[in-house]
């Protein structure tokens, strides 16, 4: 940007006022000011968009890898492991006991991960401390039965194609809230393309609004 252009631009800005331009010295300063403005703006915007998420989230590795695709292949569906209890409540992440329905103290497959599983958890009788991508705050009540049994939704709508994955992605924990990045969504602006890209209350409400005509009363989903 030439000094001349700067001057005109500043002149036009000034003309909002009384139309009298300031002294030459001031104009230059203002021109430089604009440059500084733009540089600072771009720098801050980019660091806010690219650097900030890196600082905000800490990456954590799962205890060992889990091959969903393999297990779905063996078990046939999601519900075998992620099952309902008799009272209609949902078990969520299976407990060790559920794994032991198929697994035993002997390794079934060939992966190193299974070896870890057997050695560190099965033999030690310890629950696997999975990080749960979809973990919601304590104040949320979510009825899986209402969604999958009554409304006939499938798992993918909210959880995506995790069942087809062969490895677990790293868990990115929000350092402030302690929740997974998947709740806010991978996109730091919160923009979503698929229904499973974000798991905030607004996403629930939007779907409820669309499907039932009302976003629902507080207690429908809170406790």
């Amino acid at each position, binding site marked *: 940007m030439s000094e001349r252009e700067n001057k005109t631009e500043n002149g036009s800005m000034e003309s909002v006022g009384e139309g009298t331009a300031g002294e030459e010295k001031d104009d230059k300063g203002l021109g430089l000011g604009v*440059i500084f403005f733009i540089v600072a703006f*771009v*720098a801050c*915007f980019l660091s806010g968009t690219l650097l900030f998420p890196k600082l905000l989230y800490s990456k954590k590795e799962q205890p060992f890898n889990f091959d969903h695709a393999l297990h779905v292949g063996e078990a046939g569906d999601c519900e075998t492991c992620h099952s309902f*209890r008799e009272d209609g409540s949902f078990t969520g992440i299976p407990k060790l006991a559920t794994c032991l329905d198929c697994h035993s103290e002997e390794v079934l497959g060939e992966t190193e991960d299974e070896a870890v599983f057997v050695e560190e958890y099965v033999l030690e009788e310890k629950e696997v401390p999975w990080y749960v991508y979809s973990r919601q705050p304590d104040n949320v009540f979510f009825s899986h039965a209402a969604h999958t049994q009554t409304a006939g939704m499938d798992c993918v709508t909210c959880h995506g194609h995790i069942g087809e994955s062969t490895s677990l992605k790293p868990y990115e924990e929000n350092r402030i809230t302690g929740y997974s990045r998947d709740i806010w969504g991978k996109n*730091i602006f919160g923009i979503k393309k698929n229904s499973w890209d974000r798991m905030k209350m607004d996403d629930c409400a939007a779907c409820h609004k669309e499907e039932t005509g009302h976003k629902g009363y507080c207690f429908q989903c809170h406790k």
Partner: protein
Amino acid sequence: MKVDRRSFLGLGLGAVAGVAVSPIGIKLTDDSSIWSQNWPWTPVPVDGEVTYESSVCSLCPGSCGLSVRKIDDRPVKIEGLAGHPVNGGGACLHGISGLQYLYDPARVKTPLKKNGDKFEEISWDDAIALVAGKLADIRKSGSPEKLACIADKEQGSVSGLFQRLLKTFGSPNFYTMPSLESYLELTAEVLHGEGMTIGFDLENSDFVLSFGAGIIEGWGSPVNCFKANASRKERHAKLYQIESRLSNTAANADKWIPIKPGTEADLALGLCAVILENKLFNSMAVANFRGGLNKLAAALQKNYSPSKTAEITGVKVSDIEKMATLFAKAKMPVAVFGKGRGDGAQSLKELAAVHTLNCLVGNINKKGGAFVQLKSDYLEFPDESMDSIADAGFAKNKTGRYVSQLIEKVNESSKPVVEALFVYNANPCYSLHDAKSVKQAVGKVPFVVSFSSFLDETAKEADIILPSHTFLERLEDVPSGAGLAKTVVGLTKPVSQPVFNTKNPGDAVILIAKALEGSIAQSFEWESYDECLESVAGGIWDSLSEDGYAIISEGIPSGFVAVNVSYLADNPATIQAQGDDELILIPIDNMRLINAGIAASPFAIKTVSDNVLKGSDSVVEINPLTARGLKDRGYATLTTPIGKARVMINLNEGMMPGVIGMVKGLGHTLNTKHMSNKYVSNKGINVNDLIGPVIESGSGLDAAFGIKVKIFKA
């Protein structure tokens, strides 16, 4: 180009604008609020599978069935068990708050040994060895009777094991704390003969004449009584409550008859007099009376004419006559005794006089009346093997008939009357009258072993504490008693893994017995308490383990019941309160507090009215007429012959003039240097620090219903 102020301005504005359109602002705003919604120091309860387990409550003699909701292995809520023969759903606040006892960090977490004025943690093995060693020494010295035990009750297998240990050790000195059940048995013994007990068919009676029995204050089996009381209206049954204070029972009754404290026996006899005089009695029943009915009648005519009774009791002549008539003419009347909860001091004269009313109208073993039957004995312990020391020791006389007499003897004697004392499920240093002198007596005993789960007032005096599981961690048979019309034995089950390093007290006794070796060990050949229970409860074990309870007797007992009125015919004297002041202090039973050994839970304390407890002050009830210069919610000093206390005043029209009421169950001092129990400790005053025992001649019972008191503005 010169970098000047404006450049910096541009830089600053650019940075602000850049940050503003970047997601930082919105994300941080959102995240900080999410952080505040999930503060790391606010607990998040872990979710899991919901299951329910049934058990039985043993916090009080009520023996209610409980349903415990668990999340995975973690009990989270206690509720009444629907369909249980005692409570049939519903539960009292103490049972519901049971988990606060279970998880209480102020529990005794491991065996403790007193060293100077401090407790030290020791292992179970060391603790048992220590106790056994001490006992062996006593036995060796040739006076095994100097081992005494104070327990809460006689019934049940754990109490049975304690009794068995004492017997095989060679001591007759097994004592129980006063309880409604003990008074029922005593009354039955005096009027009907030994080995009997009494129950009241409140749920069917159409006229309940209650001599201060706190039917909805926790008397008897509380929830059962609540239910019987609640159904009264539908059954068109009446409740007359005779009491100096407008208790909740009095307020809920059809009629409240205020009476001078301590004259309930006189009123009962006055009513007997009217019934006898007007021939309102059941002549069939009376025909079988023994022990001098005519003598009794004559004495009553002389001493308890309606006008004389009115003078003594403060009840109007017309009310006396009306009550006697209503009672005698009701289809299914029943008179109940046991002031308050019935576990405080009582006089035998009163117990007998009230029950004589039942006998006179012939409602013994009739629907809606009083059920008199043999004490249930469902446990079958194998015969003890007794060595010569045991035989000789056990044959000796008990040191005193009741625990209060034992305490008196210990305090009076300069030589140790008791060498070792076991205390199980009892807190005499808190719940007996003149608690300070009780504490002194316990302090004089060279070796005290407490089996308490909590560091209560008595446990603090102990040399060794062998901490017990709470009722939620152990297996135990829980027989109902407490005036229930039916006899039910419930089974307490461990609904939780032991939270601390505690044991079932039954196991502790078995271990001690085994360590004592010889004939004592031979009498305790079970591997564990659980095995012992299964074998001694043989007859009902299947029912216990399958249903969670066994009904021993239900419905109207059959058979003839003899009545002997000789005790009353001898015209025993009525107890007078200690002291010479004008006003009288009486203890009040409050459902939201516990008067037995343990303190009420934090939840229960929370529900207590600020007209009962304010900060750390006890509030006393006093009629405005009696209060003179005292202001509502002002402070006053109470002085009785045995103690002094600063209290807050509650002007209460429900209190009889001349009487001051103070609640029982406050004033626990559970704090120690190392363990604070601030939620339930140091709250108010223990009324037993202000009231001293008054022993009724003849019966030997502590029958102090109150004490004379002075009150001044503080």
